């Protein structure tokens, strides 16, 4: 909890009214912690997310006593998000029965807390589920943050004038997804959302999000192509190792397109394999600085009714990362040179670990 400098002076003034109402100065009220995901499902609160295959997100997400400030996730357009907040006061058990609080906000907040009552039912501690009103989660993918400024408006039902400023909480950083995350990433990893929500920021449709994630996976993931191994033999994607290592093959990159887009709620992305063998025209594989030709046993691409290939750039004279291309159209024309070209039925990674 960050305090504002003028609080001391405010408290000096406030002490007179406290004395009048039977409180011992200096009055101190704090926000102890905040849960953004406090119950199953996401009808009221934030989505369940994890850091990766082996690490949960510790909750309450905001808990300064433990130096904790974890991210959480909402779906675009959501309103009336609820949070669970614990407060503390320094007046001793029973001195304060209830208070009313409200917030203002700064940054990209999905609503503020209108005046709401909090009961101190556990000694000096009180908890309440508070609703964010007068706003909504933005209508596009993002990774954003906000601060809340907390005020006590009433103590034991008595209005305070001026209202007592508790302090500021935050920054509350949160992911905005397109829709409910999909298997095999129905519980999204923040290790994935950290990429996907930045790459697809400001996108409000599935197709534009898949496009941005494909393009940024090629340009910004820091991998170098190597076709002699894979982290992603269908249907298994060893994402943990993939993220830890510097190399990738076409299966890895197609898995990125499927899994990263599904993590933000795209429902139908898959991968599609093209069996060869075939000699390919000049390509610029991910991480390469020189265009190459060669032979592939097969190639595999991200699939969203069309090709989304995060592994290569095609067409040396006018390079492009292929997105939304017909597998037997311009994509084949600029990739395939000689041999067999046999697109298989689209398939899906079902296990990510």
């Amino acid at each position: 909890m960050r305090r504002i400098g003028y609080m001391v002076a405010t408290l000096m003034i406030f002490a007179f009214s406290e004395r009048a109402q039977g409180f011992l100065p200096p009055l101190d009220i704090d926000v102890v912690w905040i849960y953004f995901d406090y119950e199953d499902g996401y009808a009221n609160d934030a989505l369940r997310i994890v850091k990766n295959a082996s690490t949960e997100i510790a909750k309450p997400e905001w808990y300064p006593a433990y130096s904790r400030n974890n991210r959480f996730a909402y779906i675009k357009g959501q309103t009336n998000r609820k949070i669970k907040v614990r407060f503390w006061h320094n007046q001793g058990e029973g001195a304060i029965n209830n208070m009313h609080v409200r917030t203002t906000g700064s940054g990209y907040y999905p609503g503020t807390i209108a005046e709401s009552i909090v009961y101190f039912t556990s000694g000096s501690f009180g908890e309440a589920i508070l609703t964010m009103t007068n706003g909504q989660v933005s209508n596009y993918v993002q990774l954003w943050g906000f601060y809340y400024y907390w005020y006590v408006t009433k103590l034991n039902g008595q209005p305070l004038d001026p209202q007592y400023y508790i302090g500021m909480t935050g920054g509350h950083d949160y992911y905005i997804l397109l829709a409910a995350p999909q298997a095999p990433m129905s519980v999204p990893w923040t290790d994935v959302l950290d990429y996907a929500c930045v790459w697809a920021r400001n996108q409000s449709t599935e197709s534009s999000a898949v496009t941005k994630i494909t393009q940024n996976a090629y340009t910004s993931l820091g991998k170098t192509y190597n076709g002699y191994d894979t982290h992603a033999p269908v249907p298994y994607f060893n994402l943990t190792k993939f993220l830890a290592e510097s190399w990738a093959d076409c299966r890895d990159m197609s898995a990125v397109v499927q899994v990263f887009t599904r993590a933000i709620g795209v429902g139908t992305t898959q991968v599609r394999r093209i069996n060869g063998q075939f000699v390919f025209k000049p390509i610029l594989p991910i991480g390469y600085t020189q265009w190459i030709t060669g032979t592939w046993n097969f190639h595999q691409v991200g699939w969203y009714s069309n090709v989304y290939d995060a592994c290569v750039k095609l067409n040396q004279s006018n390079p492009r990362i292929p997105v939304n291309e017909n597998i037997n159209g311009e994509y084949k024309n600029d990739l395939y040179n000689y041999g067999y070209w046999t697109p298989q039925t689209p398939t899906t990674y079902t296990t990510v670990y």
Partner: protein
Amino acid sequence: MFNKSSNIKRIIPLFVLWGFLYPLRSICQEKFLLQENEMPGFRLEDQYPWMWVVGEGNIFHPTINQKWSVIGKENEEIYISYGEFKTISECIQSIAYAATKSYSVPYIWGSLTGFIVGDGSWVGMPDALFFIRGNVGIQIFKPGTSHETEKQMLISISEKILNKIEANLSSEISAYEEALKQKQISSNDYHIIVEPVFGLDIMKAYSLHSTWDSKWVIDSNRVAMGIRSEWKNEQGSIIGIDICKFDSIVEAQKACEQMNKILSFLNHIVDLDNLSSFKTIIAESRQYGLERSISLVGSKDNFSLHLYLFDSTGIDTNLVFSLVEKITEGIGNF
């Protein structure tokens, strides 16, 4: 706070995964794994379960992966996968599939160095190597920008692993190999067959570089043992000749068909009585950009031949023709 139902759904696939990785403990034993004291100049960064796609592309075979870094060059990584199989034939066929079909970039038969690596090897030029010894398969893989010198590093590491495998082969596999040796073509017969080759002027530039027992899969249960030698010239060009003797003509033909599948995705079978057929094979290799190496497989009587060449300046078709002709002439001496 945990969402219990979501937790269970998330864990189930991991149990499935552990289910097929679990046999790793009993099948792929640690006796083959390199230790840090056996790899001076390298640091073992990680060791973890991995998998190869084998069979006909529908089986995941559990392996153990090691990640090594070069001390002083922390961004240089080497990955080594160790996989053990029940039988030699299963190992050869599985690794052949893994090497030639399960990765997007095809591996090419041999080591392209003059060193025969184990019972068979495939190289991804120049930074990846698959090889087999007995019932053990190994993949060494060095991602990143590659140089020719790194090929020697891979060969050097493979020699260390081969020594460990040799010292730790199971008694069943050793006994099986001993039985194969009893029926192996004799060294004398091998030399009689390849002797006509040395009448070619060009062979004066080549010297014998390495020799090892070869393995020819006849079917899923049977393997035969041959002899394989590689000759090398000063420019680094390689000529390899592998001869195997079988109990029957039919077995020799079957073994050729199996070897054809093992070598690569291309057709390698040549009719030794109609040598013009190999020109089709050379033409196909060139179309796939493989103009610097070639493998030919053929049988005559109860002998089978695997002839392979690597030449960094390109394959000399006339040389290939002459070699096949001379070896066929040698087989005709029996």
